């Protein structure tokens, strides 16, 4: 037997805006739509309704209600919220039909045959309700064997409603005729006849009703009886891990951004986990004041669904590289990755734990600088001291020493960055002494010159003569250092010490 579960989220524009702002849920909030000055109230929550707010109010009328917070309708936020809602519903059934309107979101789930997975319909409804509440939605749920009965009851009632098979007509009988959304003329006709509920409509003789109002009355009669047919049209949107939020006023406070980021990460983690995925990358796209754009990428070493870990990375990333201006809109997009499973070895050498290492690296970058932490990589050039830093990651296979000479200890250099300019005394084409700004050093032995040049065709070309010198300071301290003469400018520099 076919069974349907209908999720109806009334006032969806307001729910979508309040989903990521739980602190506002208890406050009276109304959503305005349209261009100023012709804005009209299109959605509101229960506290706002209690204050006297109503649909269709102008901004002036709404602002006259004390304590009512007005928000602007945002289709992007509603779209993101709808995706989240759809993801949550898809965990209970793969066949979902979208019946949403402009101010509400309605999803019909074909739950036929799900008893063995989720238990009886009432248990499924409870789990569905709990899942939606966790995501910040408030939905009414109706389960019935009749598609339209579930739809009408979900829109007309609150909470969970279960309609036993065969009890559709009695259950629908108490509902007002407005539940069918009849055209105004026909609604007036029924009102003139004294028909106000679906039960009264169902009691009318079908043939005479069709003779007076036409074939469309057949559908209304069947709807009132709970026997209207429906051809199910399931939809399957593309799986996209993305959250969006637009602030009412630009936000420059990092804590506020992180509070919102935490909610977004929670949602993304839940959606990825539902499909047995992890988050491999988080891409934070921020639209700033005056049209500027800021982009941050968080790429953990291994895909993760640890929300605290991801939030910590986000915090460190934003602390190290804060946006240059207040943030107006935020889009957090995630790339799904496979959950990592690492086989640990009993005799494998100790290495840093990947997730902990990510946090440590982020903290180190916050201390020393973004581009000053990593693994050195030598560049393929003869230019002395050429290297760049690559992101540090624990490689699985160690590099084997190429030959026996690598087993020997070689003399190391300690570079001066930047090199220190010195004045050098040269006799018989050999340096005999050098002096910096304050001290003079006598050179006891000078070995060289080692001439090196390259890239003469470019601006960054070099033409150097290197001297290894043993120097004696006035204090008696002996030094072995590397002096370099730029043969183009004839300038001498203390490049490094041997140590």
């Amino acid at each position, binding site marked *: 037997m076919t069974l349907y579960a209908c999720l109806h989220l009334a006032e969806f524009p307001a729910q979508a805006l309040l989903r990521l702002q739980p602190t506002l849920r208890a406050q009276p909030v109304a959503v305005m739509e349209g261009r100023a000055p012709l804005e009209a109230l299109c959605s509101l929550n229960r506290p706002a309704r209690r204050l006297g707010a109503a649909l269709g109010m102008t901004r002036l009328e709404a602002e006259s209600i004390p304590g009512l917070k007005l928000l602007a309708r945002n289709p992007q936020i509603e779209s993101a919220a709808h995706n989240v809602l759809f993801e949550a519903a898809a965990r209970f059934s793969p066949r979902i039909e979208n019946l949403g309107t402009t101010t509400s979101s309605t999803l019909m789930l074909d739950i036929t045959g799900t008893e063995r997975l989720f238990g009886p319909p009432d248990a499924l409804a409870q789990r569905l309700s709990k899942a939606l509440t966790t995501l910040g939605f408030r939905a009414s749920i109706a389960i019935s064997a009749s598609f339209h009965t579930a739809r009408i009851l979900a829109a007309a009632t609150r909470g969970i409603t279960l309609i036993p098979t065969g009890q559709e007509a009695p259950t629908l009988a108490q509902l007002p005729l407005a539940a069918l959304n009849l055209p105004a003329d026909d609604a007036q006709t029924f009102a003139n006849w004294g028909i106000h509920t679906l039960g009264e409509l169902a009691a009318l003789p079908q043939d005479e009703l069709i003779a007076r109002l036409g074939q469309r009355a057949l559908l209304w009669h069947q709807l009132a009886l709970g026997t209207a047919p429906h051809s199910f049209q399931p939809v399957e949107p593309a799986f996209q891990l993305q959250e969006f939020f637009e602030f009412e006023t630009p936000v420059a406070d990092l804590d506020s951004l992180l509070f919102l980021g935490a909610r977004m990460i929670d949602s993304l983690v839940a959606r990825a986990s539902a499909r047995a995925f992890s988050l491999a990358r988080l891409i934070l796209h921020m639209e700033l004041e005056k049209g500027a754009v800021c982009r941050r990428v968080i790429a953990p070493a291994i895909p993760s669904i640890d929300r605290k870990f991801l939030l910590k990375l986000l915090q460190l990333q934003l602390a190290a590289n804060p946006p240059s201006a207040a943030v107006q809109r935020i889009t957090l997009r995630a790339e799904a990755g496979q959950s990592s499973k690492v086989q640990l070895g009993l005799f*494998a*050498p*100790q*290495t*840093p*734990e990947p997730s*902990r290492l990510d946090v*440590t*690296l982020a*903290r*180190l970058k916050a*201390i*020393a*600088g973004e581009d*000053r*932490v*990593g*693994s*050195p*990589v*030598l560049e393929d050039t003869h230019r002395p*001291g050429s*290297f760049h*830093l690559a992101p540090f990651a*624990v490689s699985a*296979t*160690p*590099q*084997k*020493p190429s030959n026996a000479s*690598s*087993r*020997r*200890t*070689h*003399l*190391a*250099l*300690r*570079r*001066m*960055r930047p090199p*220190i300019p010195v004045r050098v005394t040269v006799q018989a084409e050999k340096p005999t002494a050098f002096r*910096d*700004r*304050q*001290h003079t050093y006598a050179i006891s032995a000078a*070995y*060289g010159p080692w001439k090196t040049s390259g890239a003469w065709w470019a601006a960054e070309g070099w033409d150097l003569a290197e001297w*290894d010198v*043993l120097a004696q300071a006035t204090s008696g*301290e*002996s*030094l*072995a*250092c590397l002096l370099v003469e730029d043969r183009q400018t004839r300038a001498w520099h*203390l490049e*490094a*010490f041997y*140590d």
Partner: protein
Amino acid sequence: MGTAAALRITLERSLQHRFPAALTPSARTIYETASTGIPVLDSLLDGGLPVGAISEISGQESSGRTSLALSFLARRTQDAQVCAWVDAGDALDPESAAANGVDLRRLLWVRCGTPAAKPQPSKPGTPMAATSALSQLDQALRSADLLLQAGGFAAIVLDLGSIDPASAMRIPLATWFRFRQAADHARTSLLVLGRDSYAQSSAALVLDCAPLRARAAGKAAHQTVLTSLEFHAERGRQRFAPAPTPIRKPPASTWSANCTWDISTAPATEKRA
């Protein structure tokens, strides 16, 4: 039971109230060490540098501290372990590291200090001005602390070789004590390179280094190629020594490091004092 054993037990029982286990050797903990890659220094240090402890390698410029540290890291990275170099003075030369056999992919380099803000040193071979050294030192200490707490690093080199000793001496003892505890917990060898010894009682080993002589190729009057430098290393303090050192001249060794361009296969001169 033999007569000697029975006699020993009898004596121990009779002296038990005054000397517990008088004739039984006391249990001794054998501490793990890791080879430096320089045999004569391994011999001097009874196996190498201690694991899970602080080792200080002190000395002036050109005393072989960096070559020794790189040689140690080379052995550790070749064993598929991960190391870090916290560079307070931004002085590490990656080419030297690669020449010594360090697997650069397994080396995390933290370059402290900002080049634009770094003032010129007042004198070659002397530390940075104290005003900048403080901030660089602070960065280096924080970085070393984070790496030790993260765990998983077989060796961490805290390079304070370019830092003014007057500034480094002001590092609180509590910091060194915390480093010692963290290194012990993480089984990390923490090497501190400096112009002086700073960690005091928290250091398990202090090795004093000094330059000895240079060797060059060719005849005396026409020597144009520097081939190696010889260094002197003296063991100043070793907490985990297997046998207590008698009070006399501390043990020392000389060792040498060849230049990268020296391809001669003859072993460098090394001797134990």
